[in-house]
């Protein structure tokens, strides 16, 4: 047993249990915490694939920021109805079927893609490579994404401002 195997096992377990708990828990704030665990596990898997930059951005954005945003959002808006949900048999069957379909589709995609068999050496300086690629080959998508984020930011401020004026 290598350390890599052990670490993979732990992180995969974190990612999966986080997801399962997220679906099964009843209080929203517990769900938020478990999805945070899942994000963290995925970040660990990224580290094992030598994608350190992606891993820590995952921690910063998802496990840190998004979890907190969701937690604050639920705290501010919680209505208090956390009782028993009505049981809907047809709904459950349909969601099971669609989950199986999506899973089958993904598996089909994974099996039919021809993956490069030789591992690429990403090297110790892969952040530099990411930076160079991002700002030479993918400048326009990068700039477009930043404009999109800026629009979202301004939009959020406008919405918040309008809400405040009504009081």
């Amino acid at each position, binding site marked *: 047993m290598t*350390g890599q195997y*052990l670490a993979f096992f732990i992180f995969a377990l974190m990612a999966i249990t986080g997801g399962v708990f997220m679906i099964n828990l009843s*209080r929203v704030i517990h769900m938020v915490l478990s999805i945070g665990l899942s994000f963290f596990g995925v970040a660990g898997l990224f580290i094992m694939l030598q994608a*350190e*930059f992606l891993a820590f*951005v995952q*921690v910063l954005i998802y496990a840190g920021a998004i*979890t*907190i945003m969701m937690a604050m959002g639920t705290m501010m808006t919680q209505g208090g109805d956390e009782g028993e949900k009505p049981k809907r048999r047809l709904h459950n069957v349909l969601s099971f079927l669609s989950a199986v379909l999506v899973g089958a589709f993904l598996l089909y995609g994974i099996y039919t893609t021809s993956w490069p068999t030789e591992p690429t050496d990403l090297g110790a300086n892969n952040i*530099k490579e990411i930076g160079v690629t991002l700002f030479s080959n993918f400048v326009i998508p990068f700039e477009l994404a930043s404009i999109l984020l800026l629009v979202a930011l301004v939009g959020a401020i406008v919405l918040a401002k309008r809400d405040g004026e009504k009081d």
Partner: protein
Amino acid sequence: MFGILDQQFSWLNFTILALAAVALLLVVLLFVMYAIYFERKVIGWMQLRKGPNRTGPWGLFQTVADVLKLLIKEDVVPKKVDRFLFLIAPIISFTPSFMVIAAIPFTENLYFTDINVGLLYYGAISSLSITGILLGGWASNNKYSIMGGMRSVAQMISYEVPLIMSFLGIVLMTGSLNLRDIVHAQIDSGIWFIFPQFIGFVVFLIAGNAELNRTPFDLPEAENELVAGYFVEYSGFRFAFFMLTEYVYTFALSSLMVTLFLGGWDAPFGLTFIPPIVWFALKFLLLVFYLFWARATFPRVKIQQLMEFAWKGLIPVALFNVMLTAVLKTLGIF
């Protein structure tokens, strides 16, 4: 550390690493214990008081006694809290604070990881603590604690932005996120980054102080408004965990500042007969002293001043610093 991370995994190596981590934890705990003593003494002297002077010679055992008291206190869990979150929140908050120390190089040979994204690692992992604070405040089911938790989150998120931006000038200058490379760049060029990156340093000092929730930015625990902020309902060793988190972050942030701006273990004026670890400790203590000094002399700011200062003051200055560094770098001055 000592080349173990490059070797194959074995239980022996695992044990050695675990023991090293425990040793580091003991050093940090000792630091925390005497940092609190030092803080109380320094603030006492600045306010023309004596500070703790009863327990042991010069009051040296005062904090030892305090810690012992906290540890053997009853662990009270109030009835109407969200039990699971209430119990786990201090742990979520503390663990990242200790994890970030792994990235810091203390000397040329004494470091735990040589990670190529060291700075990003620090920023990312330290942001996880906020979740623990927010959950602790919420799970306590108390109006003061939830307000303290919300304030703390708002403050820490706001000040994280200028804090991380103030690093960017250095990253631009060295072209690396590796903390060891950053120290080596300072040793090679013979000039610490505090001089070419002075704006970044000032932004870091202020934003770091706010990130640590210390006076003048200790709004999350403003005792005259919120009793004690997010840990109102905590007692005993869980309360101690929250306090410990703050002081371990003091340790981590001051170490990071030494590494980034004060040349790490580099000896100034060619005084190399003093060992590097002592130089690191001296610079580190200077920054810790600054934090205590600020606490003793500044009044607390108001919440709207706090937010305006971050978004309208520090962030534009930090952005300007990044722009300036980029321009100077392009012109070939740096």
